[in-house]
């Protein structure tokens, strides 16, 4: 179980991840998917730094937990969370992101970037691939889990529900989905056009063990990860994480403009000041 000190450490990591997101977005001359990166920051930090059994020194270890970013446009967030864990150097990411020949691009490419389990990018693809990984592990009597982080937007794709139905029908207890339920798609708020609700109940109806959590409450996320049902059980788990798109920067929060956008110096300074203020408040609360 995560003690208070561990949780504070993870919260500090989340602050650093948001800072690095802003640094990268400032440095890169093009749009970065900051909205979704910010909404899944705590989730990625909790997975890579607490919940998942992964080792940057042994990236192909047979017993490692697998992770697939189904919402592939969150690649920058994943690279940064992994860099903080020791898989990559943030400076390399900062220096080469988005350039021809770089392993770090808008969507994750397994054949160019070691330690990824699969390339993703087109939405609705990651969950089916994760189901394949889970089938292989179960048949081979391996004990690791397969984690996948999906978006609520891509949950409009039929292939998500095809895979949900398959995992539920075959009872893949070693499969853990996390959905970044930030209530926004690319160009619209969830509910203005499509309405996913009752979202958690949909997963339950597909025979998934479904848990709802505040996706920005590190202690709560750790608690969910601590209490996952055994991997040899007969139900997949879906963690429905309620999040805020653009979380942490006031002008990005719940803003359609910041699904993906360029960050200039002026906005960077404002955003960084807000992150710093929140970090100071966090430290103050600790002290």
């Amino acid at each position, binding site marked *: 179980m995560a003690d208070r000190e561990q949780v504070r450490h993870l919260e500090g990591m989340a602050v650093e991840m948001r800072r690095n997101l802003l640094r990268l977005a400032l440095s890169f001359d093009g749009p970065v998917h900051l909205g979704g990166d910010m909404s899944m920051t705590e989730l990625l930090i909790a997975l890579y730094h607490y919940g998942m059994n992964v080792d940057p020194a042994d990236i192909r270890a047979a017993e490692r937990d697998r992770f697939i970013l189904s919402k592939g446009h969150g690649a920058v967030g994943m690279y940064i969370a992994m860099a903080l864990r020791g898989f990559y150097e943030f400076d390399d990411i900062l220096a080469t992101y988005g350039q021809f020949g770089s392993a770090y691009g808008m969507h994750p490419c397994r054949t160019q970037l070691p330690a990824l389990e*699969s*390339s993703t990018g087109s939405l609705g693809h990651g969950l*089916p691939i994760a189901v394949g990984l889970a089938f292989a592990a179960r048949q081979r009597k391996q004990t690791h889990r397969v984690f996948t982080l999906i978006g609520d937007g891509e949950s409009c794709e039929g292939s998500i529900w095809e895979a949900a*139905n*398959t995992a539920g029908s075959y009872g893949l207890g070693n499969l853990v989905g996390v959905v970044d339920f930030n209530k926004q798609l690319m160009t619209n708020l969830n509910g203005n056009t499509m309405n996913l609700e009752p979202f958690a109940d949909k997963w339950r109806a597909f025979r998934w063990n479904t848990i709802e959590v505040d996706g920005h409450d590190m202690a709560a996320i750790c608690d969910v990860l601590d209490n996952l049902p055994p991997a040899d059980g007969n139900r997949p788990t879906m963690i429905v994480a309620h999040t805020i798109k653009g979380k942490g920067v006031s002008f990005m929060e719940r803003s359609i403009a910041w699904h993906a956008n360029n960050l200039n110096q002026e906005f960077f300074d404002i955003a960084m000041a807000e992150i710093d203020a929140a970090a100071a408040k966090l430290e103050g609360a600790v002290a």
Partner: protein
Amino acid sequence: MSTAVMNSPAKNVVKLGDKAAGRGVMDQVLVDLGTENEDVWTVCADMSTYLGSFRKAFPDRYIDVGIAEQTSVGIAAGLALEGAIPFVAGMAPFISMRSLEQVRSDVCYQDLPVKFVAWYGGLTTGGGSTHNAMEDIALMKQLVNMDVVSVGDPNMVGALMRASMDHPHPLYIRFGVGKGDPCLYDPETISVEIGKGILAREGSDATILAHGDLVFEALRAAEALAETGVNARVVDMYSIKPLDKELLLRCVEETGHIVVVEDHLTFGGLASSIADALMDERVMPRSFRRLGVPQIYSGFGSPQVNWAQYGYDRGGIVAAVIEMLG
């Protein structure tokens, strides 16, 4: 390139002139491969009837996702990422179209050795245009890392599945109905190799290049032409990608006239691959004809009726050769 002798361990070898079921061969060879290699899996979207033997033999390596082709291909990619060797078995129109993006972005982009075994290629379903696969070769051969073979002889379905085990890339194996298919070759004398064609009948006046079910039609057409004194060569160009350029160029040099016949749109399939290859090599045949499905959504009816309707059955092939020889 991967090769396999036709009759190697498949148990249900049938002889030249017999009829057999490509789908039955598929199921049996899957069992053989699954026995030899514990990483062999079969994934399908509600095709369990045709996979009964494998399902029974290896229930823990058999996944039926129901009628959900997209997720079946995504799952196969996931299995391959873990080092498994998945065969995705199903109907050609749905593998090639419903799950096209999964085939491209999950399998081909990552160059995973997933094998697609697809029946009902061409106008063979009787189900009309929703179920016909007249674009599948064009779609599949266009994908980077994907290789494409199209098979008429039912034993070759198994032989190519066997050859695919040493093929480290995605492979699309296409055949027709997969039931009551005529055997074209004596299995003890023919070996298959991805990237090679088979000289099915010698001839010097013209070459008919075909794949799949239409190799049989081409052979019957050549017999009919022989009665009129025309000596037509028949090549089974089952390997569409990679293409056997060497054999193609030899046929142009030795026979001059080229007829390509396929149960597929006349543009985008084998005929287009051949035309591309000839242009790239700056080789101009004396004449060139492509027979197949025109720009039309066909009606219902048997394969033979459809082939005849659009002029690419044996009668259509005979007429085309006679016309081109003037």
